């Protein structure tokens, strides 16, 4: 199972805890994880990426294995540790303020 950690507002929206477990078919990529996440929790559609363009929302970041993967291609394979479920894929609301 793939482990995905959600930011607080999306946990409230999906009524889940900090981390959810997903079954992902095929290569484990940003896109396949988000597809599985939105299938399991349809209320999250549109909150992480645009409905139509599938572009990541500007203030959302994707981290894993201490790396910022936000700018990686959506179809690029994620680290093995994420694919094997030993490390979570983190969806993060960017710090914005002053």
């Amino acid at each position: 199972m793939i482990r995905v950690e959600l930011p607080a507002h999306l946990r409230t929206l999906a009524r889940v805890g900090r981390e959810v477990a997903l079954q992902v078919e095929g290569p484990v990529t940003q896109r396949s994880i988000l597809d599985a996440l939105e299938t399991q929790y349809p209320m999250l559609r549109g909150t992480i990426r645009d409905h139509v363009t599938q572009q990541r929302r500007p203030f959302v970041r994707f981290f894993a294995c201490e790396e910022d993967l936000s700018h990686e291609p959506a179809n690029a394979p994620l680290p093995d540790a994420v694919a094997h479920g030993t490390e979570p894929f983190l969806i993060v609301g960017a710090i914005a303020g002053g």
Partner: protein
Amino acid sequence: MSGVRVLVGTRKGAFALTSDDKREEWDISGPHFAGWEVFHLKGSPVDQNRIYASQSGGWFGQLIQRSDDGGKTWEPVGNEFTYDGIPGTHQWYDGTQHPWKFARVWHLEPSLTDVDTIYAGVEDAAMFRSTDGGKSWQELSGLRCHPSGASWQPGAGGMCLHTIVIDPTNPKRIYIAISAAGAFRTDDGGETWQPINQGLKSDFMPNPEAEVGHCVHNLAIHGSRPDVVFMQKHWDVMRSDNAGDMWHEVSGNLPSDFGFPIAVHAHEPDTIYVVPIKSDSEHFPPDGKLRVYRSRTGGNEWEALTDGLPQNDCYVNVLRDAMAVDSLDSCGIYFGTTGGQVYASANGGDSWSAIVRDLPAVLSVEVQTLR
């Protein structure tokens, strides 16, 4: 027993304030959707337990929430607002053309006759309709595709469709307002639209009397006389006696004719309310005095309503969707401020008291009269 439920949208969540018909003791629930901006909530006139809410934020975008139990519990419904066809462009602040892009829902207007039909006014300006209780949304693109659409440009707050008023005697007739394009009307349920801005004069425009480009802030009608439309424009309080075909100014003796909301008394079609604001660059009441102004003559002659409102050192604003009336026998008036106060009057504005004083900045106030 009758009563009221005041639905308050704020910068950091939604609140529901309920009372019996005396409107003296209040129960306050919330924050709902804590931490999110709630631009607007509104209850269905068909079913008082059905409430829709527009929840949005800079991080995670737009959500629409629906309650079927009077606001006790909520379920997210559809949040996909996709423009019909290829959206094209509109004018940007610098005069260049800018792609139409959905930003948020400013206003939700439930149908007067069908609990599952609801209209949404969005930024960038467009009108959407759902006929399945908010699960899916379709654009009424005849508005955005009006020949003037490419010339519309945003006001300081964005290019938003913020006002939707449905004629209760003819549901196919709907008035809307866009900042800064002006007012429009459909007579065929949203298929086709016409600008209704004749008589408006806006000195910030190269042609102050152009067909579109006016910064209309809010519209209001009384259900018994729906062809009479009142308008709070950026500057000027206006009135039309022919469904918007022609407007004339009724600012009269107001201390400032700049403001955002306008409302009509529930039982007196010629009694209207505005909250004068000093200017477009000083968004607070003149002289630090928070005064609602009431006209009992459909405009021109205005009286200040001050009993219970702060009359010194008050520098809050009252936004366009932040004033509403109930329909109890003694009409109640409510408004919220950017300072977090929600004021109520149970006697048509003669006296006021604060229901709450320390909410986040209030974006919208709507009232349900509970029977």
